[in-house]
C-alpha cells in the first residue's frame, strides 16, 4: 500500500521557488533518506507533507487521503521530529508524551501513562520521566521528541534533520533509536546529513537539489557509483 504519494508539488516563498515539480511515492514500511545541499528544499518538503507549509500546487495523498482537502485526519497519520526538538519546556518528560494523546485522542490516563512509560523505556529514558526537558542533553531531548511523536501512534514518521543540532558524540544514540524504528518497519522519511546512516538504514535515497528530486535510488547506487555530476560533487564535499 502506498503511504505517501506526492504529485507535482510546487512551493514558493515570496520570490523563491523552493519545491518545483516534486513527485514520489513511499510504500508501507519503507525508509527514505532525503539528502542534498542546504536550501535544496528537503525540510520544506517534509513540512509540506505534514501541513506546516501550504503547497502552491500539486497533490499530497496520505494513505489514500488527499491531505490538503482532508486536513487533520490525514496529517494525524504522520508524526514529526524537528531539528530543534521543540519539547514543551513547562512539562516533564512524561507529560510531554501524554499531553497530546490525552487532549486529541482522549485516551484513558492510566493506560496512556503505561503506554508512555513503555515508549520512554524504548528510547532508554524511563529514568528521566519526571524531569523537565531543560535537564536533558540534546540527544536525550531528541529521543524524548521521538517518543512523543510515537505516542500519537503515527503510521509514518518524518524526521527533519534530527541530529543536526546535536554535539557529535550525541548523534549515535539518536540514530540508534531511529534505526530501531526502521527495523520495526515504520514508514519513515528522514532528512539527514548523516551519510553513513542513510546508507545503512534506508531502502531508498532521494537526492534533492534546487527544489527537485534529482535522483531516487538505492543507497548503493547513489553512494557507490553516483551518476550525476551534482551528486558526486556533493558527496565529495560531505564525506
Amino acid at each position, binding site marked *: 500500500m502506498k503511504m505517501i504519494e506526492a504529485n507535482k508539488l510546487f512551493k514558493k516563498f515570496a520570490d523563491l521557488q523552493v519545491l518545483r515539480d516534486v513527485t514520489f511515492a513511499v510504500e508501507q514500511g519503507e525508509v527514505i533518506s532525503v539528502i542534498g545541499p542546504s536550501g535544496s528544499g528537503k525540510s520544506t518538503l517534509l513540512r509540506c507533507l505534514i501541513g506546516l507549509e501550504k503547497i502552491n500546487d500539486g497533490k499530497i495523498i496520505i494513505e489514500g487521503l488527499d491531505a490538503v482537502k482532508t486536513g487533520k485526519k490525514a*496529517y494525524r497519520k504522520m508524526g514529526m521530529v524537528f531539528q530543534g526538538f521543540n519539547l514543551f519546556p513547562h512539562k516533564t518528560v512524561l507529560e510531554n508524551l501524554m*499531553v*497530546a494523546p490525552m487532549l486529541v485522542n482522549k485516551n484513558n490516563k492510566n493506560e496512556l501513562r503505561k503506554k508512555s512509560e513503555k515508549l520512554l523505556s524504548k528510547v532508554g529514558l524511563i529514568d528521566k520521566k519526571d524531569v523537565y526537558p531543560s535537564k536533558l542533553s540534546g540527544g536525550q531531548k531528541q529521543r524524548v521528541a521521538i517518543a512523543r511523536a510515537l505516542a500519537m501512534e503515527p503510521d509514518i514518521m518524518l524526521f527533519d534533520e534530527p541530529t543536526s543540532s546535536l554535539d557529535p558524540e550525541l548523534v549515535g544514540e539518536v540514530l540508534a533509536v531511529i534505526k530501531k524504528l526502521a527495523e520495526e518497519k515504520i514508514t519513515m522519511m528522514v532528512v539527514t546529513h548523516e551519510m553513513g546512516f542513510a546508507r545503512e538504514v534506508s531502502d531508498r535515497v532521494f537526492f534533492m537539489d534546487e527544489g527537485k528530486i534529482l535522483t531516487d535510488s538505492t543507497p548503493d547506487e547513489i553512494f557507490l557509483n553516483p551518476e550525476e555530476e551534482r551528486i558526486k560533487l556533493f558527496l565529495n564535499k560531505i564525506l
Partner: protein
Amino acid sequence: MDYILNVTGYILEGSLITFKLYLATAVFAVLLGIFGALGKISNIKFINKVLEIYTWVFRGTPLLLQLFFAYYGLPIIGITLQPFTAATLTFIVNYGAYFTEIFRAGIESIDKGQYEAAQVLGMNYRQTMVRIILPQTIKRVLPPTSNEAINLVKDSALVAAIGLGDLLRAAKVVVTRDFTITPFIIAAIMYLLISSVIVTVFRQLEKKYSVYE
C-alpha cells in the same frame, strides 16, 4: 498612641475603597489583557485595528484624564456613573491596555517551534494556546505584570481626584482637620505594606514557575 490608632482606623476605612478598586481592576484588567492579547495576535484585521487604537489611546493619555473623562465628561453626553463605578471602569480599561501589550509581547516571545510541535501532534488552536503557549507566557510576563501590580497600588490614589474616599484621601482629610503630618506617614506605611505583599506574592509565583528552567 490612641490618636495614632484612631487615625489609622479612619485611614483603614478609606483603604477599603482602595482594596475594592484594586481587586476589581486586577481581575478584570488581566482578563481583558488576555483577550486583548489573543485578539492582537489573531489574523482578523478588524480586531487588530480596533485593539491597536485601544492600546494607543489608553496608554498614550494620562490616567487622570481618563478618570475625569469617565466621571465629569460622560455625564455631558448623558452617561452618569457613580464615582466608584467610573473609577473601576477607567482603571480596568486603562490597565487592560497595558496588560494587552504585556501579554501580546509574552505570547509572541514563545518560539514558533512550540506551535509547530503542537500542530503536528494534532492539537487544535485552543488546546495549543491553553496547554502549551499561555502557561509558558505566564512565566515570561510575571516580572512586567508585577511592575503593573505595584503601579496599580499607587495609581489607585488618583481616585481621590473624583471625590472617592480612598486611603490617601482619608489621610488628607485628617491632615487638614488636625494639622498634623502623622496621617501621611501612616498612609505611606500602608502603601509600602501593600506593595511589599504584592512583591512577595509575585516573587513566590516566579519561584513556582522557575521549576522548569
